[in-house]
C-alpha cells in the first residue's frame, strides 16, 4: 500500500481532478495495477464501487444553519513518515500524506476537522493548519480545544496563550468550533473549576464567542459525570452550541463495563437531545475495538451485510442518531478514509433490527474479550495444581474459532455449549480447572502480560457455571 501511496503522491497536483477514479482503485491496486482513468479501471473496481464525491450526508447546525459533514476528520492520528500514527510515534509527521488525506476528504465532502493543541504530541494543529490553509477558508470548519490539562497551564495567561496559539498554528482568524477539552477528567469537578472557572477562562471564551472569533462554543466530556451534569444544568447561562461525547454501540448501554468512570452514551445523548444541543461523536470505534473484533463477531457482521466493513457498523450506529452533528474518526491511512467515506456518502441509517443486532454484538464483545496469554508458563506451576495456560488458551481458542455462545438464546447455543464443556474437559483435567483457583495471587506477579489471573479464573468459572447450569445470559 505504501508504494501505491507514493505513486499517487507524484501526480498530486492533478489528483484533485481525477480523484474520484484514481483513488478508488487504491484498495484494488494490488490486483489491477493503477489503471487511472478509463473504463477498464472502472470495471475492475466495480466490486468496491466508486466513492461518490457528491453524496456525503450533512447535518445542519441549528444555530448557524451551516451544513456539517456527518463524517468528521479527527486529527489526532496523522501519519508519520514512518507510516505510523503520530500519536504513537515521535517521528516527523508526513505532511505530504496529510495534505493528500485532507484534499481527498474535502473533495469527497468532508468539511469538519477536529484537532487540539495536545494531539500528535502537540504537532497536530500545525500540520492540520498547513493542509487546510491550501483550501478556501469557507470550505471547512475547524474544531480545536483548550487543552489545558497540565496544572502548569491552569493559569489564565497560560490558558489564553494556548488559545491564541491555536489561531497561529491553524493559520486562521476565527475558530468554528471551540471546546473545553475533556471536562470531568482528572479529579473531576475541582480540576474543571481550576481549568475554566477560577481563572475566568470560560468567561473569556464566552467573550470571544461574542466577538465572533469563536463561532460555536462547546465542551468534550470524559470521566466524572457530575461535571457534565453541571454544565448542562447551566446551559441557559452558557448556551452551549454543541457537546462532544463518547458514543458507540458498546458505550450506549455498557459504558461502565469498558471503563468504570464512563457513563452510558444513551444517557449523555439523551441529555443533549432534551436540550436540543447537537452532539459531536468521539470514539465511535471505542479505540479501535469495534473494528478489530474477534473472527466470529466479524463473521456475523459480515453475514448481515456483505458489502460493509466491520468498522462501518460502528460509524452507522453513531451517525444514525438525528441529533448527531458529526462523527469523528481519526484516520491515519487512506484506506480508513475511503472506507469511512463509503459509509457516510451517503449514510445508510440503521433500522431498529440493526440496532438490536448491534446491542447483541456489544454484549458478545463484552463477554468475550480474549485474554492476552501467550502460553509462556511463567505462572506455572500453580501451587493448587491448576493448569492456568491450559484454561486460558482453551477459552481464547473457543473465542477465536467463534465457537463461543454469545447468548443462551443463540441458535447454535446447545452445540456451542456442548463443544465448550467437552473441549474444556479435554484440554484441562477437571481437577485443574478454573473452579479450583482459590485466589492466592501467587501467579499474578509472574505474568509478563500483567493478566489478573485469579480474576480471569473467576470469570471463566462463572461462565462455565452459566453453561453447566443452563443459566440465561
Amino acid at each position, binding site marked *: 500500500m505504501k508504494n501505491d501511496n507514493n505513486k499517487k503522491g507524484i501526480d498530486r497536483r492533478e489528483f484533485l481532478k481525477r480523484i474520484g477514479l484514481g483513488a478508488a482503485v487504491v484498495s484494488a491496486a494490488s490486483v489491477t495495477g493503477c489503471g487511472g482513468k478509463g473504463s477498464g479501471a472502472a470495471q475492475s473496481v466495480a466490486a468496491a464501487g466508486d466513492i461518490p464525491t457528491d453524496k456525503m450526508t450533512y447535518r445542519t447546525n441549528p444555530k448557524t444553519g451551516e451544513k456539517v459533514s456527518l463524517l468528521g476528520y479527527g486529527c489526532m492520528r496523522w501519519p508519520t513518515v514512518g507510516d505510523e500514527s503520530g500519536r504513537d510515534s515521535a517521528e516527523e509527521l508526513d505532511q505530504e500524506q496529510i495534505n493528500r488525506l485532507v484534499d481527498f476528504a474535502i473533495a469527497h465532502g468532508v468539511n469538519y476537522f477536529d484537532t487540539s493543541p495536545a494531539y500528535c504530541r502537540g504537532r497536530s494543529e500545525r500540520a492540520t493548519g498547513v493542509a487546510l490553509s491550501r483550501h478556501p477558508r469557507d470550505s471547512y470548519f475547524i474544531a480545536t480545544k483548550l487543552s489545558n490539562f497540565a496544572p502548569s497551564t491552569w493559569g489564565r495567561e497560560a490558558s489564553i496563550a494556548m488559545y491564541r496559539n491555536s489561531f497561529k498554528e491553524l493559520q486562521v482568524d476565527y475558530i468554528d468550533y471551540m471546546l473545553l477539552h475533556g471536562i470531568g477528567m482528572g479529579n473531576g469537578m475541582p480540576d474543571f473549576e481550576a481549568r475554566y472557572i477560577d481563572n475566568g477562562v470560560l468567561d473569556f471564551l464566552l467573550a470571544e464567542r461574542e466577538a465572533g472569533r469563536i463561532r460555536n462554543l462547546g465542551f468534550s466530556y470524559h470521566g466524572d459525570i457530575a461535571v457534565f451534569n453541571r454544565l448542562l444544568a447551566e446551559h441557559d447561562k452558557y448556551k452551549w452550541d454543541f457537546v462532544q461525547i463518547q458514543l458507540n454501540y458498546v458505550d450506549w448501554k455498557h459504558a461502565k463495563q469498558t471503563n468504570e468512570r464512563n457513563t452510558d452514551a444513551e444517557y449523555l445523548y439523551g441529555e443533549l437531545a432534551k436540550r436540543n444541543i447537537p452532539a459531536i461523536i468521539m470514539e465511535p470505534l471505542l479505540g479501535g475495538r469495534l473494528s478489530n473484533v474477534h473472527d466470529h463477531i466479524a463473521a456475523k457482521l459480515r453475514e448481515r451485510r456483505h458489502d460493509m466493513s466491520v468498522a462501518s457498523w460502528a460509524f452507522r450506529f453513531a451517525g444514525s442518531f438525528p441529533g448527531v452533528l458529526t462523527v469523528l474518526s481519526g484516520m491515519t491511512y487512506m484506506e480508513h478514509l475511503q472506507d469511512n467515506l463509503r459509509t457516510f456518502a451517503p449514510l445508510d441509517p440503521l433500522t431498529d433490527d440493526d440496532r438490536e443486532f448491534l446491542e447483541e454484538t456489544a454484549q458478545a464483545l463484552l463477554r468475550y474479550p480474549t485474554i492476552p496469554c501467550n502460553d509462556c*508458563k511463567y505462572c*506455572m*506451576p*500453580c*501451587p*493448587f*495444581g491448576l*493448569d492456568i495456560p491450559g484454561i486460558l488458551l482453551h477459552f481464547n481458542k473457543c473465542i477465536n474459532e467463534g465457537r463461543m455462545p454469545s447468548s443462551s438464546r443463540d441458535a447454535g447455543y446447545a*452445540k456451542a455449549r*456442548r*463443544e465448550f464443556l*467437552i*473441549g474444556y*474437559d*479435554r484440554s484441562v*483435567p477437571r*481437577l*485443574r480447572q478454573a*473452579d*479450583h*483457583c*482459590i*485466589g*492466592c*495471587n501467587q501467579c499474578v506477579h509472574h505474568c509478563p502480560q500483567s493478566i489478573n489471573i485469579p480474576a480471569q479464573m*473467576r470469570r471463566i468459572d462463572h461462565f462455565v457455571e452459566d453453561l*453447566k*447450569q*443452563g443459566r440465561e445470559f
Partner: protein
Amino acid sequence: MLRKIRILLAVVCFVSITLLFLDFTGTVHAWFGWLAKVQLLPAVLAGNAVIVAALALLTLLFGRVYCSVICPLGVMQDCVAWIGKRTKKNRYSYSPERKWLRYGMFVLFIAAMIAGVGSLVALLAPYSAYGRIASNLLAPLWAWGNNVLAYFAERADSYAFYSVDVWIKSLTTLIVAAVSFVVIAVLAWRNGRTWCNTVCPVGTLLGFLSRFSLLRPTIDTEKCNSCGLCARNCKASCIDSKNHKIDYSRCVACMDCIDKCHKGAISYSLRKKTVQQQEQPQPAAEPKNAGRRNFLTGMGMLAATSALRAQEKVVDGGLAVIADKKIPARQTPIVPPGARSLSNMASHCTGCQLCVSVCPNGVLRPSGGLMTLMQPESSYERGYCRPECTKCSEVCPTGAIRKITRAEKSSIQIGHAVWVESNCLPVTDGVYCGSCARHCPAGAITMIRYDADDPDAPRVPSVNVERCIGCGACENLCPARPFSAIYVEGHEQHRTI
C-alpha cells in the same frame, strides 16, 4: 408364533432396560425410563397402584408373562439358559414345587421389607439384582468403549463422544453383583428358572395369581403321547408330563413347550375351554425356525464380563501434584435430595443402582452399610451435587428418591457443612482463599476474620446452617487435601428451607 412374539418383546425390553443402566447421557431415559417404573417391586414401593393393578391383571390374563418379558433378570437367565441349551439339548426335567423354600424366602423378604432391612431386600429383588449386575459389570465395559470412541473423536475434532471416568463405586457392591451374577447364571445354565421359582419373591407373588390365569398352556391328553419332550425343555421344570399336569404357579408362559411338542398337544388357551379343546385341536406347533437363534446372539455380551480396576489418573509433568480427596468420616450419611429421609430411602430403595449409574457428578455410590447395603449415598470427593442436576430423582422407579424440580432442589436441605479449622488453608498457610464461599450456590458461607481484632487476618468460612443445603460444592472445591477443611454432614430428615 407365540414364542417368537414373547422373545421379540423380551429382547426389546431387556435391551432397553440394560441401556438404562449403561447410558450416562440421560437420553435413553427419556424413551425407556418407564420400563424401570413398570417393574413390580419398584411400582409397589412407589405406591403406583395403576401399574400394580395392570401387572396383576396381566398375570391373571396371560400367566407370568411378566417374568418372561418385563423382568430383566428373568430374560437374562433365559439368555444364559439358551446358551446352555446349545451345549446340551433337552436338559431340564420336572421337579415338584419346593414350597418351604419358595414361601420361606417370600416370608423372609416381606419381613425384611417391613423391618426395613434394605440390604436383604436389595439382594433378593429381581430387578435390582439385574440392575446391580448391569451397572457394575456391564456399564464399565460400555464406558470404556465410549472412552475409546471419545479418544478418536478428540483426534478427529469431533464432539460426538466425551470421555467419562470409570471407577469402583463400592467394592462390596461389585462383589455382590459378581457373586449374584455367577450364582444366578449357574442356576440358569443348569436348571433354567430355578431362581425365579424358589428365591425370587416377585416370582412367588405372581405365582399366586398365575394359578388362576385366563390363558395358559394346556396339554391335550388325546394328542399327547407322553414323550416328555415338553418337560425336558421346560426351564421352569413345571410340566409333569406323566400326569399331564402343569404347575401354573411356576410356569412363566415362555411358550417353549408349545413349540417343542411334535404332536401339537400343547396349546395356549382359555382355562374354560379345556373341555372343548378335545373337539377343536389347535395346530399350535410351528416349524422350528433356525433363524430365531440369531435373535439372541447379540445377548452373548452378557457373558463377556471382566474384573474391574479403577482408572488411575496420570499426572502431567510440570504441574503440581494433586492428592486425591478422601472420604471424611460422616456421622450421618447423605442421601440425595428427593429421598426425603434416611428412613424413606431405607424402606423404599431396592438397590437397583439406576441412580448411581446416571449420576453425572460422581456423587452417588452404593452404600457399604450392613442395613443399607447397595442403597445410594452421596459423597463429594469427585464432584458435588450440582444445582442443575435432578437426574437421580427422575430415574428412581421406587419412590426412594421422589421426583423433584431444579427449583425444589435449591431449597432442599439434605445436610449441612461443617468447618474443620485444622485443615483450613487461611489458618494453616495464612493465604487468602474463600473458595467455599465463592462456590456456595445457596450463599450460605460468609468469610469472617479469623482473628476478630486483626483487620488483616486471613478470613475463614462461617456456615449459615439454616441456608446450607448440603450440596457439597464447598467440600468438593476446598483446596485442602486429602481431607477438606469443610465437609457435609447428612441429615436424617430432609427439609425445605
